């Protein structure tokens, strides 16, 4: 059976055509401008760009997590042969395929590590590796060379995977060939394995090594769980935004939002579970080499950030997303999606900055600059990736099933 484009609702705008090219340019300009402001202010601080880089890293990992969450969503959808998510899958593919942009945005971090300046990672500076405890780490793992090689590897894998899914899916728009779906399904389980390992080790390299003496086996899972929450919140808002501009108005229905919201709810709980596991086990055994990481995060003003994170990322959104109606009304769901995007940003900030600035929370213009900066460039990248492609996988054999999908 050939799925034809005629199964797709006629008359719906499915591409970004009509969107003024200005939008992408404005985003890119905002991005570069923000980064310039952040960088300039960072230089002015006179701390060898430490303030700049910690803010840069936090914001970078935030936007990276959204693309990684997207990549997971796409791969998992293929592995489980999901039908309901087909109409939203193209959006996820586009977000996931933003890897080149992310790779470019990673360059400042890479450069600073390779230069051995120690502005970001303490294992990287001139005094690194002098402690016994860290010597094996810096000798074999946390050294600039291997760090760079691994980073290249991660981006290569992510880029290749995301491109594979996007290109096959786009090819299918025209040919509607079910064999392409079979290819994507066959590749997806192995892709998931690759994804798990690359994301885990990336989080070890870029986030966990901020405190080189500290370690946690669940850290990769923690970053992953946050990434899924961030992505789902983002795609809900993205879909709502597109529908507000008159696109995809029939493809993405209240049933899809309901399912995305159910997933978001479940992943918020999953994030809470992972966060609690890590915290409680370290708290309970009370071993100083592990508790040091949390001790910083419950001292001074970081304590309040931790409390806000607990309530803002778990407890409040749990009750907010619990009612069925909350998941089906755009206004309410949009509110919670936005809330969780903020909460996820706070999570990343909380992961990065206390390890580098134990004194306390010091939000400033540098943070704003980096947020706007990286965000602007990131979204410009998404728009560029989207180009004139349809925003719905028109040739997918399960498109009809997805359009007709109804929650019971």
């Amino acid at each position, binding site marked *: 059976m050939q799925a034809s484009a005629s199964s797709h609702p006629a008359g719906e705008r499915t591409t970004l055509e009509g969107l003024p090219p200005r939008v992408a340019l404005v985003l890119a300009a905002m991005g570069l401008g923000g980064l310039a402001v952040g960088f300039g202010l960072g230089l002015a601080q006179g701390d060898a760009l430490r303030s700049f880089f910690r803010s840069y890293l936090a914001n970078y990992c935030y936007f990276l997590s959204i693309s990684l969450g997207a990549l997971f969503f796409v791969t998992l959808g293929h592995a489980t042969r999901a039908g309901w998510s087909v109409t939203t899958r193209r959006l996820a593919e586009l977000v996931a395929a933003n890897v080149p942009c992310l790779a470019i945005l990673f360059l400042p971090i890479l450069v600073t590590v390779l230069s051995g300046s120690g502005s970001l990672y303490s294992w990287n500076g001139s005094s690194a590796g002098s402690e016994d405890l*860290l010597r094996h780490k810096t000798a074999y793992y946390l050294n600039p060379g291997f760090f760079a090689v691994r980073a290249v590897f991660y981006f290569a894998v992510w880029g290749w995977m995301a491109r594979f899914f996007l290109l096959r899916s786009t090819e299918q728009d025209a040919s509607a060939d*079910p064999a392409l*779906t079979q290819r994507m*399904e066959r590749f997806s389980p192995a892709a998931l394995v690759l994804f*798990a390992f690359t994301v885990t080790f990336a989080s070890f390299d870029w986030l966990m090594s901020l405190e080189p003496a500290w*370690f946690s086996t669940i850290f990769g899972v923690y970053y992953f769980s946050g990434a899924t929450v961030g992505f789902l919140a983002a795609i809900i808002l993205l879909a709502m935004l597109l529908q507000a501009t008159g696109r995809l108005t029939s493809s993405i229905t209240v049933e899809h939002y309901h399912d995305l919201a159910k997933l978001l709810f479940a992943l918020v709980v999953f994030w809470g*579970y992972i966060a609690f*596991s890590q915290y409680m086990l370290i708290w309970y*055994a009370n*071993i100083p080499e592990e508790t040091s990481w949390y001790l910083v995060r419950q001292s001074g003003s970081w304590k309040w950030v931790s409390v806000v994170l607990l309530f803002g990322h778990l407890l409040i959104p749990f009750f907010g997303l619990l009612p069925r109606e909350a998941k089906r009304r755009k206004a309410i769901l949009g509110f919670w999606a936005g809330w969780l995007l903020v909460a996820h940003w706070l999570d990343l900030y909380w992961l990065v900055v206390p390890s580098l600035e134990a004194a306390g929370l010091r939000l400033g213009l540098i943070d704003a600059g980096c947020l706007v900066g990286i965000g602007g460039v990131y979204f410009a990248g998404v728009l560029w990736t989207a180009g004139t492609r349809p925003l719905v996988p028109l040739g997918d054999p399960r498109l009809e099933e997805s359009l007709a999908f109804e929650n019971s």
Partner: protein
Amino acid sequence: MSTPDLPADDNTANDPTRRAPLVIGRQDYASVTETVAKVAERRTCSPLWYGAFLVSSALTGVFFLLIGYLIVTGVGVWGNNIPAAWAFDIVNFVFWIGIGHAGTLISAILFLFRQKWRTSINRFAEAMTVFAVACAGIFPAIHIGRVWVVYWLAPYPNQMQIWPNFRSPLLWDVFAVSTYATVSVMFWYLGMIPDLATLRDRAGTKLRRLAYGAFALGWRGSARQWHVYERAYLFLAALATPLVLSVHSVVSFDFAVSQVPGWHTTIFPPYFVVGAIFSGFAMVIMLMVPAREFFGLKNLVTARHLENMNKILLATSCIIGYSYVMELFIAWYSGNPYERFAFMNRAFGPYAPAYWTMITCNVVVPQLMWIKKCRVTPWIMFVVAVLVNVGMWLERFVIIVSSLSRDFLPSSWGLFVPTKIDVLMLMGSFGMFFTLFLLFCRFLPIVAMAEVKQVLPHGEG
């Protein structure tokens, strides 16, 4: 649009343009009912059932005799000793609880994910959960030494004016396993009510009608009752899902909150949960492959169902492999000499054979499931499932005994050697499990008829 007719007895094709039928052989409501109900309605069983039941009840008898012997004589009849104060008792406990989790996953989690293929196997799996939890619960109760005061674990007002220590994961276990047992039984029973009503309505003898009728509670298929029923089923599924995550996480806390090298690692909770699902699915496959043959359920529990279960087996095996890699990497990365030694000891110490068998059975063997042929061939998946069960038992053994027998202080090291009682009790617990399971197959509806009818290809019936 027209769909080409697939052969009625093969639904393992991977055609993205249509969803594979979940019931094959041109079934309708009546034939589904007949297929399932006749298993429970046989007046006499096959000799195979009697033979299996005889063996399993004998083992059960041995099990309870040994429990009596243990209570009268003391925990010294086991090989437990300092430093390996936990051994087979806790390994068996974690093993059985883990097995139970697959049932809840199939019932609850697959339900929430709208995986309709679960309907042919969920009753079977839920029963497995209930019986596995029953076997599991025995071990912590009898390993405490003074079994006759086990009720002290419960927070009841008492004249000693003491209360349980809620800061201990051993007590969290009490609450977690009790809750899990209660919720599993309720979920299993709720699901069975309509099917018990089916058996009641078809009952040939007065005794059967009264018995099934009593437990069917007068169910009459009323839409108003179905409405409440469906909501309750959804809630129980939605509650059972985090519950199953939490129960095995709490079990993992028994180890992870300690400071023992090899135990104290933050990935334990999700790793244990995934391991539980892994071993549970292996048990379901192990039971289902012969059961669908002997009870004639091949049209309901099709090759596709088996294939899906094997895919989950493969996925969980990969996650287990991931967790092993994480533990090893972080043990190296941390530089903690005790942690590093713990893993070297596992691989090259006195229990190395157990370790390498575990790696082979848990990570290597299930990789066969990448191959489609293996996924749909019953005897292959049966062998793989048996090996996975062995591997998962060994995993708990390796974690517990290798870490305990050699922790921080070499002068405190000591080898654990199992006694005959240890081994016999493990076998006895299998006997109890299979006895209950065989009774279930004999008397209760082993497939959720009402649910399968809902997923029949449209227009049948």
